[in-house]
């Protein structure tokens, strides 16, 4: 089962540059990720590469949630420092997932009927990983907003 579900992640890892570029183009023009529009494509691509590289580590980890905390709290901190609103940061993540899937579909990775079984497995696992990531990122943002509020209060 692991071999089947890993197919999507392996494909993503091997083609990280191409998928990252497609994602960067999308995020730079999508109306729901307005804050990314003025950032350079290289800078945005760097985010996606970081993401896809670490996503694989998380995907095959026995404690993916713990791994998500380790990796994606840093990701959340960076987006927060850049002033990206949370709903845009999360939507950018959603687009990352969509581009992984679009690329796999484009490559006809799950075209045969029997491969649909694998596709369901791959999708389910990928979604679970993204659920963890989104939760971790949202929680970190929330904490940082509270922390900043507290720092402001203390300075008073």
């Amino acid at each position, binding site marked *: 089962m692991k071999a089947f579900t890993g197919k999507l992640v392996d494909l993503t890892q091997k083609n990280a540059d191409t998928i990252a570029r497609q994602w960067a183009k999308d995020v730079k023009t999508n109306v729901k990720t307005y804050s990314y529009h003025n950032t350079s494509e290289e800078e945005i691509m760097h985010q996606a590469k970081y993401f896809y590289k670490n996503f694989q580590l998380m995907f095959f980890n026995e404690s993916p949630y713990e791994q998500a905390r380790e990796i994606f709290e840093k990701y959340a901190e960076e987006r927060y420092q850049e002033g990206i609103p949370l*709903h845009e940061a999360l939507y950018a993540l959603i687009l990352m997932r969509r581009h992984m899937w679009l690329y796999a579909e484009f490559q006809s990775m799950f075209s045969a009927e029997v491969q*649909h*079984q694998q596709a*369901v497995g791959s999708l*389910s696992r990928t979604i679970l990983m993204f659920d963890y990531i989104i*939760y971790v990122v949202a929680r970190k943002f929330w904490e940082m*907003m509270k922390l900043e509020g507290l720092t402001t209060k203390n300075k008073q």
Partner: protein
Amino acid sequence: MQAYAAKLIDLIESKAENIAKQWADDVMKHNRTPSYHRLPKEMVVEQGTAFYKLFRRMALAANPYEEAKSFSWKYAEELYRKKIPLQEAIYALMLMRRNLWLYAEFQGTFVTVLEKTQAVESLNRTILLFDYVSHQVVEKYQDLIIGSVERRIGAIKTLMMKGPIGTKKNIYKFGMMAIFLLIACILTYHNHATLKSEGLFTHLFYIPIILASIWWGKRGIIISIFLSILILTSHLLFLRGMNISADVIRAGMFIMIGSVIGWLMEGIKKVEEMYQ
């Protein structure tokens, strides 16, 4: 409506309440949604049912993203009012999606190879719905937070009369402050030189002191210093025989009040900037 998703949509609609109950049991004891543990179960089930019924409406809608708002905004507003942290509200949505899928699997909805093909499409459809809803919920939460901050500091903002230097509002501020200071000078002279009394008039000085600190933050302390120097100099000039200690205390209080309000205002400005 696409044929592939129809099967799942029919199942969701006919069993919305069952799936919602299953979800409620899950979310009300899940360790990533602790704030849900104290919510009334009826309310939680109602939320779940509303989400599952949205599925068909979205499938039929010309603009599914807009249709999703009918659920997302209400969901966000309700949870925000109940003080549920954002990450928990999002995780609860994830559990809604997961329970929906678990229910479909449990009912053996997608067994044959052909049905597996439908399953992939249905999964994609579910994910898209969730993507829309989660994005709208996060956005709404942020709007609600900003709205709440705006309301709380609304009265102060009115007093702040914000505007860039050189604009009408700023000219009014400087004009009003000049009038206040002129009145302060006249009152001080009248009381000290004519009436030879320290009087209670100095209490009126708190008006320009407070306004200056609200308008200009820490820089507003200049007004407190000016008024302190004014009453001490006037005392030394016109009330030579009288004890100066009361006026020294008054001058100290002016500076202290001006400083405290100035610091508070700097903090409020930062909070405002943060939520903008």
